[in-house]
């Protein structure tokens, strides 16, 4: 069952790598001409094509590219002809670091708020939280980011507005620097997870065994914590994992706002410079991370809920 789902993901990754590869293939004109510009002589174009191995047939090149990718060799950047792998590894680690920090803040807060909202549902507290989270979902990421910058770094000057970190910084200093971008992401993710938690718990609260527990005279908090929460775990875990997948991708805009040296920023830069090896490699890495986090989400909810194991994918 899980194997089948994993197999589907692996096939998807392959198809996507193919799409990414073909995408650059069908580029109007030729990569060599695009990069070298109009003034390039035919000889330079030919030499450049040989360097990029553009003179080989596409199928051979695809296999060679994929093989090199698996071995961690992503080719050289067109912009500065440094190996792409070198730039990407550090930046990808940064992106994961930012995403992990955000999720570490978001999950406890969101689950707690979700439980509280379900406990006091239809009160003022619940409605206020619902309204706030709904608006956070509607806001563009950069709006929240600039509001946070406006408050925390301009008005009170507590946190830096640019999250530029480097390898020599200690973990504490790094965390301090990335607090604002992490908070931006947290606020959005929290909103999603919290709504899902609330809905899942309210759903479970309608079942017969909860009524039974209530009739036994158990306290509401105990009912929610011990009876309702474990049974609503499956959708909650699922939404958390889906949000992790969102985070890895959603960081792109936040990284640009805070000039954070992550993979998203690299991708946006490469897109505007039309630096294709970088675009291909970082796009594929994003896609793989995204697909496997979604796979993880499905597997986790299968483990948490035995009923799902019986249904066909």
């Amino acid at each position, binding site marked *: 069952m899980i194997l089948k789902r994993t197999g589907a*993901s692996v096939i*998807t990754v392959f*198809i*996507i790598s193919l*799409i*990414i590869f073909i*995408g*650059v293939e*069908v*580029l*109007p004109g030729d990569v060599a001409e695009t990069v070298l510009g109009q003034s390039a002589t035919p000889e330079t174009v030919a030499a450049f094509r040989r360097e990029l191995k553009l003179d080989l047939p596409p199928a051979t090149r695809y296999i060679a590219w994929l093989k090199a990718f698996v071995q961690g060799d992503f080719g050289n950047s067109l912009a500065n002809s440094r190996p792409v792998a070198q730039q990407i590894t550090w930046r990808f680690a940064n992106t994961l670091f930012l995403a992990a920090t955000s999720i570490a803040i978001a999950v406890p807060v969101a689950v707690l708020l979700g439980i509280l909202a379900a406990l006091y549902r239809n009160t003022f507290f619940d409605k206020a939280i619902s309204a706030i989270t*709904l*608006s956070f*979902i*509607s*806001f*563009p*990421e*950069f*709006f929240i980011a*600039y*509001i946070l*910058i*406006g408050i925390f*770094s*301009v*008005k009170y000057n507590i946190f830096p*507005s640019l999250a530029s970190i480097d390898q020599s910084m200690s973990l504490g200093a790094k965390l301090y620097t990335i607090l604002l971008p992490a908070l931006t992401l947290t606020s959005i993710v929290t909103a999603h997870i919290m709504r899902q938690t609330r809905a899942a718990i309210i759903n479970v609260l309608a079942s017969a065994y909860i009524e039974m527990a209530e009739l036994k005279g158990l306290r509401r908090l105990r009912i929610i914590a011990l009876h309702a929460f474990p049974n609503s775990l499956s959708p909650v875990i699922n939404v958390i994992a889906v949000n992790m*997948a969102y985070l890895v*991708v*959603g960081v*792109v*805009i936040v990284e*640009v*706002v805070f000039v954070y040296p992550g993979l998203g920023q690299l*991708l*946006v830069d*490469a*897109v*505007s410079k*039309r630096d*294709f090896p970088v*675009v291909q490699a970082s*796009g594929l890495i*994003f*896609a793989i991370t*995204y*697909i496997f986090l*979604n796979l993880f989400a499905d597997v986790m909810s299968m483990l948490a809920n035995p009923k799902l194991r019986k249904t066909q994918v």
Partner: protein
Amino acid sequence: MFKLLRQSPISARFGMIMIVLTLILAIFAPLIAPYEETKVVGDVWEEFSSKFYLGTDHIGRDLFTRMVYGARNTIALAFFTTAMSFSLGVLFGFLAASVGGWLEQILSRVFDILMAFPTLIFCLMILSIVGASIPNLIITVAILDSTRVYRLARAVAMDIAVMEFVEAARLRGEGNWWIMRHELLPNALPPLVAEFGLRFCFVFLFIASLSFLGLGIQPPTADWGGMVRENAGAITFGIYTPLFPAGAIAFLTVGVNLVVDWFLHIASRLED
């Protein structure tokens, strides 16, 4: 219609007022705006005054004027893209549901793969290849977004396609196209209308994000996402100019979401 409006909850009314306000700005842009869209009229980042209601932007254009024209460009683009994504998604979804068989299999697999790919990344890659221009942007975003519409349209149409009246139409000898137009579409409309609102929000935010990354509408044309980008530097000097276009984006999305919430409520009540 009016009866329905009168029954609307306060939140939906707020939402409608927000949408109508923005639409008025967008439609009557040339009448409302005090200056021309791309004309430099003052100093860089001037403060609020009776001359410049919201101050000026990074090269001295009137921000209020840019906001008003930006409403027009941003909303028109998002609306057009949503409409296109919707037609594509509904067409393929209905086709899959009414024809079935291998066509449905192929369509579903293709859309599954498109959905497995993170939209923003996919869009960035495609735009890096074909170049960022308005038609490319519209087509790319519309195709990527139609995957979500397809899912819903197919699911809704599948439920309807097994009803007796569709069966009856088939026995009468009506073709697939006739059934799609006369049986599936009218019956699938309520959930689809709510979905249109949701998709609009999503596309609107998405295009704003792309513009913010510099890949959407190109300057000097005013659009809200791009205006945030252009003025982003101001925030570190304690000037809140970029918050206005960003806030406007948030304002409209919240408005649409409030109305959509109400629609979803109605649609779910109809099912009971």
